[in-house]
């Protein structure tokens, strides 16, 4: 078992992070299209996507079975499956792996939900350190507007309704997202996250992303997967 920062792989791992509604998934999709069109072997992996854990998470959310500790632990299980299945093998094979949300999502969310900061970091110490981790930083009100206006009903855990901050879903969600944003902010220097100002235009953010990952790309690999 190799720890965070100790893996040596020919592949590259780029991850996007940020609060809900920060536009990170849109940016990652654009990056994916670009890298594919350049002919790089690209593999995409997203949060909460383990086929082994999916049903358990779904059932637990529906039946409100989670506590902060089990919420954290089951998401770590999901992430471990993603790592062992979708991240390690392609990186070993020299591919580019793009991850929509990574360990920093767990660090922000679980700590906001009351878990111990260093305990959560220890749990995820098996994770591969990304080549670049982008943090799409949107002002809190922008992110909240994007989510609340796009969705009539906030989900129970999404709004943090199990944490007893407020019975009102929107108010609880706002408190929760504020805590999450605080955690992200403190991780910028701790993990060297690359901050992207998510309030600017989509095109400008994408240009910046491409510029920042270009030095990490091996031009020899381009064109092979075309």
């Amino acid at each position, binding site marked *: 078992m190799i720890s965070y920062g100790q893996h040596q792989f020919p592949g590259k791992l780029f991850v996007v992070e940020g609060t809900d509604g920060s536009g990170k998934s849109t940016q990652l999709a654009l990056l994916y299209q670009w890298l594919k069109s350049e002919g790089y072997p690209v593999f995409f992996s997203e949060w909460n996507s383990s086929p*082994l854990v999916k049903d*358990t998470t779904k059932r637990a959310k529906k039946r409100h079975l989670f506590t902060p500790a*089990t919420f954290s*632990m089951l998401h770590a299980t999901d992430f471990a499956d993603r790592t062992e*299945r979708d991240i390690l093998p392609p990186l070993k094979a020299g591919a580019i792996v793009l991850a929509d949300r990574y360990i920093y999502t767990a660090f922000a969310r679980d700590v906001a939900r009351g878990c111990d900061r260093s*305990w959560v970091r220890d749990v995820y110490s098996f994770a591969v350190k990304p080549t670049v981790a982008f943090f799409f930083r949107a002002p809190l009100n922008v992110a909240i507007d994007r989510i609340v206006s796009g969705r009539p009903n906030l989900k129970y855990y999404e709004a943090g309704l199990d944490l007893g901050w407020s019975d009102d879903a929107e108010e609880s969600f706002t408190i929760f997202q504020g805590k999450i944003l605080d955690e992200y902010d403190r991780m910028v220097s701790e993990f060297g996250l690359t901050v992207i100002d998510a309030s600017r235009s989509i095109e400008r953010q994408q240009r910046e992303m491409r510029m920042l990952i270009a030095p990490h790309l091996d031009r020899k690999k381009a064109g092979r997967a075309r």
Partner: protein
Amino acid sequence: MQFYGTPLPGVEKEVYPGKLIVIEGTDGVGRSTHTALLRTWLEARGHAVLDTGMTRSILAARGIKEAKTGTTLGRVTMQLFYATDFIDRLENEMLPALRAGFVVLTDRYIYSAIARAEVRGIDSAWIRKIYGMALVPDAVFYLRIKTAQQLVERLLSSGRGFDYWESGMDLHLGEDLYDSFIEYQSRLLKVFDRLTGEYGFQVLNASRSVRTVAADLRHAVTRVLDEPAPTAEDNLSVIKSRRDQNGAKPTTNLVDLNKKALP
């Protein structure tokens, strides 16, 4: 209340009236038999008992079972899935019962999980940090058997046969289930011996008859509960009552036990 490491989130340190008693041991050593016997005996003595065991959580039991039927369960994923199951039972079963004054009997605890992780090459400091959320039990009784060969005899005579995971087939240690089982269980036994000192297990020689081991366990449990030691009649009455409860289907162990107990 004491935790091994970082406590569970949101749990205040408190003194609870219950007792947490762990029965540990490798596969096929008789843990479930002894847990069942102990439960009946404790109930007869007027204790409310909660019994629990690995992969019995409402949250994760089904998922783990399904994951184990396939071939894609990775080593790290497996440890975390087990930890999810453990924490769910700790928070939703064990802690509430301890607060309510129950004797909580658990068939395996974190030590089996740690042993299984270690024989799979998982970082031992990492797995211990994860299980730092566990409560330090009032007692851990380790049912010890010397060799994996002895386990095989028990396994075959019970009619259970070899299981893929109990044989450590995911580790590719041998040509077939038998070879793999011997190697895997031998490694587990070594780890358990190491954990005995680390976690202060009370070791019981499980190669002896069920009756002898059960009597030893009862004596040891009375010490944990700070109660007078059981008498011979006490043991006998429990066995009888258990047989009555079971009606027409007493298990082999219980029949055997009963015969030996009668004058």
